[in-house]
């Protein structure tokens, strides 16, 4: 019984790992076969910012006005101080206060 569960765990996690690693390495290997200049390169250069922005925007918007304020403060702090940790804590503080007092 116990070992049957363990076998499932080993298989499930191994499959998840294989899928994840294939995507990581696959993206890199595919991209190295594409042109290094022109339109394609411009698209690839825009990708990091576009991905990061897409990663955070829906959860910022989900917090409403306070989310936007938290994000703005985070942005200002990181530009001024170059300190990512301080910026993160300021953003969290806004959300903490908003949830507690509103």
């Amino acid at each position, binding site marked *: 019984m116990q070992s049957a569960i363990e076998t499932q765990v080993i298989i499930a996690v191994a499959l998840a790992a294989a899928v994840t690693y294939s995507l990581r390495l696959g993206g890199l290997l595919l*991209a190295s076969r594409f042109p290094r200049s022109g339109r394609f390169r411009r698209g690839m250069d825009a990708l990091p910012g576009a991905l990061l922005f897409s990663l955070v925007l829906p959860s910022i918007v989900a917090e409403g006005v306070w989310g936007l304020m938290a994000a703005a403060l985070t942005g200002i702090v990181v530009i001024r101080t170059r300190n990512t940790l301080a910026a993160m804590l300021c953003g969290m503080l806004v959300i903490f206060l908003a949830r507690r007092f509103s």
Partner: protein
Amino acid sequence: MKQRKPEFIRGARANVPVAASAMAYGSVLGVLASQKGLSWLDMMYMNTAVFAGAAQFVMVDMWSHHLPILEMTLAVLVINLRYLLIGASLDPLFSGKRLLHKVGMMHLVADENWAVTMSEQRRGSASTWFLFGGGVFLYMAWSSGTLIGLLGGGFITRPEDYALDFAFTAVFTALAVGVWRGKSDVIPWVAAGGAALLTHHFVPGKWYIVAGGLAGALSAMIGPGEAAVDGEEEGEENAVGY
């Protein structure tokens, strides 16, 4: 060619803020995992083999006495599709490196150390050892966070009361600011943001990240087509310079 060890350490140091966020986020996962009955060995096996926060949350969420293996694998595939784009965006960093180097270093690429590396690259210089140093440090922080949550069991029952769930968003907002390139990013970011919000609204799951990333990249490819002549040459220089 840069020295490996100093680059590795510089990468680890640069990842301290995101590692703090990953530890907080990891402790939440650990608490959930303890409620689902995962052992610390299961947790460490998953941390080491998968090493992808969002996907691990979904796996733990789907955890039960009889694991839905196929559904789990598909869910992980969909959530982690963004790694295809993340991997592709690392191509300039890895250019000229041997296949074995790529194979060895890509496993520990997570959202966090990838974003820190991209930000570092925009500001000055990043390297594959910088990326890897960040990955190793992040792995340690992530693992200890999940284990603290798992073994400490429910020491924070409602992490959202302390805005711990916002740590991820806040730290990635700061990193996004770090990769902002100015005017040339306006169109891609507007396209990415619009696509992400629409997809998030209408499609369940994590498709919004992929949709946003693709929309941003495509808009940059189509966008300022006329001014492309200068841009293309610049692009070539950059590609060589990395």
